[in-house]
Each structure stands twice: as structure tokens, then as C-alpha cells.
């Protein structure tokens, strides 16, 4: 199994600022993903982080708002830009192991925007 570390684990930010969340995996993963989860709700896929190229975004999510980088196989960042209170949520990083089937999750970053 893959161990996925995220930081920060939580943050409180001011409206209009940006926050970058880091995701580090302990072994090479084939694919990495970023999800958003409102408290008590399901997980919604934001984008697939592609190594060395632009991320693939889901409907309703755009690169200007959620720029993503993945410079190598074990690291990715998600930036939440120009934040508003509606961005308050839990952001989770995920990766699939070598077999490509099982997806593991980090503990998430709990973001509050004031």
C-alpha cells in the first residue's frame, strides 16, 4: 500500500488569498488525484494530476482557480486561488499503486476561509 502525506493538515485563511497544499507519496504511484469533501458529504474529484503536463480537470473546476503541479511520480501540489468562504472544505490527495487499481488517500487538508 502507499502512504500519502499531506500538509498542511489544516489552515485558516483570509478571503482573496491563496493556499498551496502539498502531497507526498512514499512510493511511486501511477496516478494522482485531488478531491474535495464538504464535511459530512461525499468526495468530489477536482482533477487528475499528470506528471510533467497540465492536470485534467473535472466539470466545474478550472485551472485558474485550482492550479495543480506534479513534477515527479511522488509529489503533487494543489493551490486554491483567490479564496472565498465557499472554498472552505477538506481537500484530499489520492494515488493509485503500481497495479493501478487500488486508490489510497491522504488524511486531507481542512481549509477554512474567513
Amino acid at each position, binding site marked *: 500500500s502507499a502512504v500519502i502525506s499531506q500538509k498542511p493538515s489544516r489552515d485558516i485563511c483570509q478571503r482573496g488569498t491563496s493556499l498551496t497544499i502539498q502531497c507526498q507519496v512514499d512510493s511511486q504511484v501511477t496516478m494522482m488525484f485531488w478531491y474535495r469533501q464538504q464535511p459530512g458529504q461525499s468526495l468530489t474529484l477536482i482533477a487528475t494530476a499528470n506528471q510533467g503536463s497540465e492536470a485534467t480537470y473535472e466539470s466545474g473546476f478550472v485551472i485558474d482557480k485550482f492550479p495543480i503541479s506534479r513534477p515527479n511520480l511522488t509529489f503533487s501540489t494543489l493551490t486554491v486561488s483567490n479564496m472565498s468562504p465557499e472554498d472552505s472544505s477538506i481537500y*484530499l490527495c*489520492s494515488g493509485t499503486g503500481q497495479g493501478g*487499481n487500488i*486508490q489510497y488517500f491522504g488524511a486531507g487538508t481542512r481549509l477554512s476561509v474567513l
Partner: protein
Amino acid sequence: QQPVQSPQAVILREGEDAVINCSSSKALYSVHWYRQKHGEAPVFLMILLKGGEQKGHEKISASFNEKKQQSSLYLTASQLSYSGTYFCGIKAAGNKLTFGGGTRVLVKP
């Protein structure tokens, strides 16, 4: 399109059984089950790749009916540690995992 889970919540006494259902309007390649405790990461339980196949994890098992595009998770002789929110995730075409709305399970002593 998000799979539909039922029930939304269930309360059990320790030792009782429960079934959680997950259905999709799309043809499925695989079904993935996760359990998430409050404030923690979703934890992978099992994956089902073939129709009619049953997999097991401790006293938690699951089935996958490919024709009906449904999966069921069976909690047998539930333990206090089974409490949490269970999510089914489905993969149709492509590698994206789409999650259901979740089922909250509370096991009481």
C-alpha cells in the same frame, strides 16, 4: 454520474448484521469500497472486478452484480470498530473513481 447508496444511515447493536447497497446507471468495470472515520482518510476495504464475485475483509464482504450494475457490502457480526461512513466508488470507462453519497454506520455496544 454519482452512484446511489442506500441506506443513508444505519444504527446497529454490536453483533448485528447490515447490508449497504450501491447502484449505478452506468456499466461498471469495478467497484471499490472505503470506510472513513471522522477526521481521517478514507481507508480502502476491497475492490470487486468481476460480476458476481464476492470478496472479504475480516467479517466484511461484498458482492458485485455486473448485470444489475449493483454492489452490496455486508457487515456481519458488527463490531464497534465498524462505525464510520462507508463509500462505494465506481469506475466506468477511464481511471476516475466516482463516489456515492456515503452510508453512516453507527455500532452501539
